[in-house]
């Protein structure tokens, strides 16, 4: 894929823990926090069917962790880049894993990371699977 991620592209944050969906069905901000690697993994899903996206999530996220796929949070790339000035986070192409991207450059302060994750969750559309 083009290493340049367009602002209009749809991105999926695959969710493999049920508590990453909030009680009202929305994406919980914890789903958007960086993981142990210090980044938040995303997949570029522009133009893909729901079934294809789910298959992708199982193949690259759920199955390797031996966890079920509960769904994904879908957000526009622009939702991430709009936060760069406020929080310093950046959106980066991260292949060779196909269609992979990451939200990188998270702030060192945990409270600031949470605030950034809350802003991301605010923009995310919850997509449950199946």
């Amino acid at each position, binding site marked *: 894929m083009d290493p340049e991620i367009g602002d209009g592209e749809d991105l999926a944050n695959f969710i493999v823990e049920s508590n990453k969906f909030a009680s*009202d069905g929305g994406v919980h901000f914890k789903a958007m926090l960086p993981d142990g690697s210090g980044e938040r993994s995303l997949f570029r899903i522009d133009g893909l069917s729901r079934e294809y996206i789910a298959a992708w999530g199982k193949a690259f996220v759920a199955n390797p962790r031996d966890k079920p796929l509960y769904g994904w949070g879908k957000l526009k790339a622009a939702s991430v880049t709009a936060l760069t000035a406020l929080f310093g986070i950046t959106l980066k192409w991260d292949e060779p894993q196909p269609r992979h991207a990451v939200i990188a450059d998270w702030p060192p*302060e945990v409270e600031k990371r*949470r*605030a950034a994750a809350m802003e991301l*969750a605010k923009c995310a559309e919850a997509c449950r699977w199946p």
Partner: protein
Amino acid sequence: MSRNALAVTLDHYYSPEASESAAVSLSATAFLSGRERVSSVTLGHDQNMVFAQVINARAAADHDNWDGNGAPAISELTVSTAIGLLYALPGDLPAPEVMPESTGEIAFEWYRDKAHVAVVTVQDGLVRWSGVGGTAPAVYGAEPFSRAIPAKALKAVRAAVGSR
């Protein structure tokens, strides 16, 4: 009598049975993080429930790597600060959900919807907060705990829960 006064027996903190016994215990002896003895107080129903959640959070995370991913144990001081914070919360706030965090913090979370969320955490003697309240930009901050919830943290919580 100060709302900040605690009603806890330290022996309760680390017992697996603590949550139930503490939840129904209406008064006892207490210490703040500075180990300063304060007066006892009668607790309301929600505070007892949240108190039990604090105890449960500690019980779930009382050793290193409690989450299987290398999370540090929640310290005794963090528990004391969490209890101090709990009793510093205004009584008109809805009860938060309390949980241990992989950072070694205890978190108090108020979730109305994805655009109205606030989290106040404690770790040792430090209070941190993050919140979103509608279309306004997210807020965050940190400061040492000094018996009262920081004004900015309380503002973030109120923005999330929709109260003034």
